[in-house]
């Protein structure tokens, strides 16, 4: 059972950019929109030194970390090229124009509503 959280619409995120989401008790999540309007979500931390990936340059289906320019694959969270390390990914999908983010486990829906 997956809980899907409505986080807004595609147009809330700049093309080739990202926005962040904070959910209680979870690390900050970066939600990316690519040049071809695909949406991906990763924990907002570079596997290198925790750079905020949401602030990087998005190109193709990669993001270049703003701190030391590692390239991270948006689909897998894997560092590319000679670098190694991985950032956890979070499922996200588009339905009827809304973006839905998976919450790994249903924790406390009431608390979430309050946060929203």
């Amino acid at each position: 059972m997956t809980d899907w959280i409505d986080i807004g619409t595609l147009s809330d995120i700049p093309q080739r950019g990202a926005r962040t989401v904070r959910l209680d008790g979870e690390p900050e999540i970066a939600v990316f929109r690519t040049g071809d309007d695909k949406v991906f979500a990763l924990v907002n931390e570079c596997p290198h030194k925790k750079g905020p990936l949401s602030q990087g340059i998005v190109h193709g289906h990669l993001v270049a970390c703003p701190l030391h320019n590692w390239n991270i694959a948006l689909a897998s969270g894997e560092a590319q090229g000679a670098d190694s390390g991985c950032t956890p990914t979070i499922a996200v999908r588009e339905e009827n124009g809304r973006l839905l983010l998976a919450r790994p486990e249903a924790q406390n829906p009431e608390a979430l509503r309050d946060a929203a």
Partner: protein
Amino acid sequence: MDFQDGIEPNSDYDDALIVPSDDVREHLVVVGNGMAGCRAVEELLARDAGRYRVTIFGAEPHVNYNRIMLSPVLAGEKTFEQIVINTREWYDENGIDLITADPVTTIDRAAKTVTSRSGRTVHYDRLLIATGSDPFIIPVPGKDLSGVISFRDMHDVDTMLAAAEAGKASGGGSAVVIGGGLLGLEAAHGLTLRGMKVTVIHLMPTLMERQLDEAAGWLLKSALEGRGQTILTGADTAEIYGDGKVEGVRLKDGREITASLVVMAVGIRPSTALAREAGLEVNRGIKVDDHMVTSDPSVLAVGECVEHDGNVYGLVAPLWDMCRSLADGLTDRHTGYRGSVTSTKLKVAGLDVFSAGDFSGGEGCEDIVLRDAARGVYKRVVVKDDKVVGAVLYGDTADGGWYFDLLKKGEDVSEVRDLLIFGQAFASGGGALDPKAAVAALSDDAEICGCNGVSKGQVVGCIEAGACSLDAVRAGCKASASCGQCTGLVENLLALTLGEDVQSGPKTMCKCTSFTHDDVRREIVAQDMRSIPEVMQKLHWTTPDGCSSCRPALNYYLLCALPGEYVDDQQSRFVNERMHANIQKDGTYSVVPRMWGGLTNPRELRAIADVVEKYDAPMVKVTGGQRLDIFGIKKEDLPAVWADLNAAGMVSGHAYGKSLRTVKTCVGSEWCRFGTQDSTGLGVKTERMTWGSWMPHKFKIAVSGCPRNCAEATIKDFGIVCVDSGYELSVGGNGGIHVRATDFLCKVATEEEALEYCAAFIQLYREEARYLERTAPWIERVGVDHAKARVVEDEAGRKALAARFLYSQSFSQDDPWAERASGNRADLHQHLQPQALEAAE
């Protein structure tokens, strides 16, 4: 044309339940006389003509016509008669009862009847729902005005034709099409051919974004603009205005476009109301199984109104597959529908666009991109696990069918991987799989470089005469020196002729292109390129949207080449420039307000102190450039911090940008006993002139009041040292990892001259240096004599450079903080707000 050829609703039927006693066959009732409904019946007749008694209800007053041909009717290429699929005779001959202009309004599943608007009630044994889609109407004010229509049926086409006719009478009407998808563009094309002035409003940044990628979308937009249409992308409709009748459209950014006709083509939704009210299972569409049976075994559904295996379709090809499975099911065959892969071709005359499958890439996907600027061709094939999974073709779609076939069959393409992008003829041609072998096989007079008309023989001759690098070939015989499309061929010839001794040319800009920074800059100006997608297309980029090295560089080059015109691409900027603050290792930001010439006053100091307290900034530090740096500001707080600093009269110090940072000064003649001139005052003037300008890299200036040089002007990008008789100017200094003292440029007598030379030098650097090249390496590369020749010796040239700099400054001296603090794009600093919880699966 008279379209009232349907049976008029007849009140005699009112309460009657029509069950002809003489026909004992099972009664199949079809709701919807469109593409799918009628095709299903045709398929059924082909299998077992006599098995069912058939009645079809249609909401439209027509016999069955080919909906996809409405565009040619609108464009004047076809008449309605020519797009009719089944004439009234056909229905009669096959014993089909056709009831037109009378939509079914209720289904009673318990009684197994349907009832129409005019009150006819008909009993069924099997019911087939084929109601198609409803156009989506965006809920803006004015959507119900007369003159606002969708593009779905013959009635809409008639309305458009009437509007064009009326426009002609009044000397040219104008229309707005909302939606730049397939349908919207077809409507726009038809209306243009009918003599209307057409503006397409599209919410997304590129046209047909569901089918095309950005590069192909850009090509399409250019082509349509070439046909006289106005295409507004990234444009959001706020309202349709008019007094009873449409007069125009207003966008959210305030722009207004007058129009007597508005066509909404923003999307369709499966038409499911009837099924939903009848209690059938409906999700996005009416849910059906592999035999097109709904949640009620007596009710079937087919076409755009259904959802099969989670998918809904908006094209005809899948409908044909569905109709076959449906007819098989109705005649006790059980093939079953398995879903369809779709491809799209744009019908708009003369524009070749093709798209199929999933070209958006993703994990494990490889993009193969070919851009042929001379022919206006863009091709992108996406390969995953050695199989084609998607393709976008623009300009040359001849191989669309082949790619689509490979895709549907899931064929292994590893054998032809290298030649795949060149198309079927090339890839399957005689086993010539090695590109070198292919070049070797060319005859001597085969043309290699189309731009300069250079043959293979000439290129080989040039190489044999000593040219052993790409650059040498370009210089020697011009091949590949223009558009660069034949670079690969020339490289293969080099490899072929010289074996392994090929020298690699100067470093290319990045892995996305074979051009160098200098080539790119030159071509941008020479070909008057105006956007990043345009550069990528014309210079054959091999990636869909570049990388983190080339995009910031291209953005800068365009900004420099087209001051006041080029629209900056925020997403191609490094985070510091996008956030107008310096990112620090913990993800917080630091903020540096400008202090002109290093001067400050109590009001500014107080405002800075207040900000430090209010936002809990853990540290304030004096920078090397004599400014105050406030550390540890959170991204969310940046707009508020800027607003407070702006309120005290301070603007951004650009300490984060590839731009002018600071002008460092000493106190000079005003206070210092050695000072010869007012170095502080000159520093302020210099900073006022140069702040806010974007550069290839960061740029620092200093002004010292005497040769004691307390402002350290001789390790700055531009240094001024005041002396008794005037000002000594020097350039190219750097205090970074490789400390470099400046090179002396010249001495001038007046402050005005010092400012003019400064402006001219900066502009020379802006126009000629490579992105991320500071003045020190640049000067070492081109020699200080080059700067002297351009800035000192050539007076007219200097004045022109300075004038270009000041012109571009007239657009760039806006405080980026003020814009963000005022709320513009402030959302980029905020977290997304989860809306509500939704449980699924």
